[in-house]
């Protein structure tokens, strides 16, 4: 008989995702907490997903002002084209 408290990593992943959209039942919630407690790979995985999210926010939050790395620049041709279009108005 399957013990409902012991989720596989796949079931835990699905519950973790569903928890972002709607609240889980108490049983599901406890099973998820227990799984994360015992499974190092899943803890690592979801921590990395959140990390990626934060890095993206840092990137987008700074992109207006900062020159991030060798960020792509407008080509000389399109720069000239834009300048000309502003002159023409």
């Amino acid at each position, binding site marked *: 008989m399957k013990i409902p408290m012991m989720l*596989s990593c796949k079931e835990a992943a699905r519950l973790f995702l569903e928890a972002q959209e709607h609240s889980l039942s108490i049983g599901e919630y406890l099973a998820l907490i227990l799984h994360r407690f015992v499974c190092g790979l899943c803890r690592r995985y979801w921590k990395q997903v959140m990390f990626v999210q934060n890095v993206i926010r840092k990137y987008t939050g700074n992109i207006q002002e900062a020159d991030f790395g060798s960020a792509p620049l407008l080509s000389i041709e399109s720069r000239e084209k834009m300048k000309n279009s*502003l*002159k023409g108005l």
Partner: protein
Amino acid sequence: MKNSLSNPSEWVDKHGDALYRYALLQLRNQKTAEEVVQETFVSALQSKDRFEGRSNERSWFIGILKHKIIDHIRKSYRERAAENLDVLGDELETMFDPETGHWRKDTAPTEWNLNADQLLEKKEFWEVLRSCLANLPQKAADAFSLKEIEEMKTEEICKVLNITPTNLWVMLHRARMQLRRCLEVKWFNKKEGRAK
């Protein structure tokens, strides 16, 4: 004190690259990004009398650019029929062993060197991030941009992309999971990003 606008002849040199980077991040296509930046400058010139000086010049341009980008995305989805997506079924199938439901050897998360401050200083990391963003499927990437970059509300994004809230949720997770995987393969499993 109110800010005033600089001479339009200086706009492209002062703001062109920043606007282009912003547009490219969201639209992931060089030509389209250039087009919306050009449209932004033209609109700015036509409405320069409406600049009230409450924000700085760069923010004003970014504000116009955001509208242009969202308009562009909206137009590209207006004609398409709404799709139905399985709730993340495909991604989860590929990540886990179908028999046991546990991590597969080749997809199990490796340990990352998560020093965010160091990462931010590495320009190679940003290049990898940009290429990972560029490789997302278009609709997932658009959903991700509107949510994470434009910080739009769920219902607004659904209107722009012509999708249901559940589909949006699926797409956002797909995008996050694919970005994680891409960064793992292209950065964290390589020498530069490996945990010590």
